[in-house]
């Protein structure tokens, strides 16, 4: 096993920050090349006229899923050391709702707002300013929401654990389901465009 690299000591704290910067820049570049620095394209996802956001991100999910599965299968990655964020059901639902409202209003999410700024867009700057302002407000108001923040913990939850279906079968189902979902998305796009 040689990965995950940080957990297995391939590089230390400073190295992890350098790699975070490299991966972050790469991620932003791919988002911009995929057209996701355009607020109108992003907002169109919510109006069901352009499923670019869904397609790009779901493609990334499927690629990562297949990559991790097969690298784990051949002993390159120790899946047991891959960090999985824990699930807090109610806070996540509420945060997702707030996030979604902000997304459709601004046409940008936190990541794509940075991409938009890098592309020279003023609306990206406005969303970044709003994001930083929101972070400040949340930090200052955290004592008021601390109980809600930790409510309904479900631990680390994966699809195989939640469904009781074997991991390889979930991988197969998601891969096949992705293709079907892409075809369905194109049908919806044609209907609503």
């Amino acid at each position, binding site marked *: 096993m040689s990965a995950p690299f940080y957990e*297995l000591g391939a590089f*230390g704290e400073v190295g992890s920050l350098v790699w975070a910067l490299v991966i972050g820049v790469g991620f932003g570049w791919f988002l911009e090349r995929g057209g996701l620095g355009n607020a109108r394209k992003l907002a169109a996802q919510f109006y069901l006229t352009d499923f670019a956001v869904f397609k790009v991100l779901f493609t990334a999910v499927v690629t990562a899923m297949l990559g991790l599965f097969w690298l784990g299968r051949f002993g390159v990655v120790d899946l047991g050391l891959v960090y999985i964020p824990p699930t807090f059901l109610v806070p996540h639902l509420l945060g997702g709702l707030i996030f979604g409202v902000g997304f459709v209003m601004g046409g940008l999410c936190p990541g794509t707002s940075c991409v938009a700024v890098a592309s020279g867009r003023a609306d990206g700057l406005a969303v970044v300013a709003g994001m930083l302002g929101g972070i400040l407000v949340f930090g200052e108001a955290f004592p008021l929401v601390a109980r809600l923040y930790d409510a309904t913990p479900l631990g680390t939850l994966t699809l195989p654990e939640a469904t009781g279906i074997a991991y390889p079968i979930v991988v197969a189902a998601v891969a*096949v389901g992705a293709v079907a979902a892409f075809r369905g998305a194109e049908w919806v796009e044609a209907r609503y465009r």
Partner: protein
Amino acid sequence: MTAPGTGGGPASQTGDRAAARSPAGRGLRPGYGLAVAAVLLGLLAPLLGSDQRMPATGVPELTAELATGAPLIDAVDLAARIRAGEPTTLVDVRDSSAFIRFAIPTAERWPVGRLASLPEGGGPIVLYGDGDGTAARGWLLLRRLGHPDVRILERGVVGWIDGILEPVLPADSPEERARYRRVADLSRYFGGMPRVGEPALERQRSAESAVRLLSRRGCY
């Protein structure tokens, strides 16, 4: 020319051209070859893949276990295990200079970055550091790797020095005298200097200063 109301400017025109050039701009029709490859890799998973699952014990559960003090072992219990020869893998996670200057008997030095290679030795794995959280990080790594019995020496090197090498214990009641005899016996076995007295409030001192004081005694 941009459509009315789209607010076209240089930045938006560049972004729009980029969006139009991109696969997403053309509606992101799946690359059929890539889609076929993804479906094939997915369908092969149940046939060729192992049923590798994520571990049942995730980080939050392990963090909660750490917070309750469950994986801690105190210096007296550790010393008793070492003296009795009970299988124990004692791991020092500090840097080499600290290890050379002072180490608990039978300890092996394993930096956290190499702990994944720690061989199974039988018995519990006991980690100790100098109180900077490195031992806790090593504990988390080993538990995530599936080692069932991993403990952390309470207060690390300082805990060993205060608990075994320089213990100060009351001996007023029969129970206290019995405990003092037990600890004193262990202390002398490891070259310590037990004393009777009222223990001071737990001293907040660094491992470095604790080891430096030991050196002044001429014993280390």
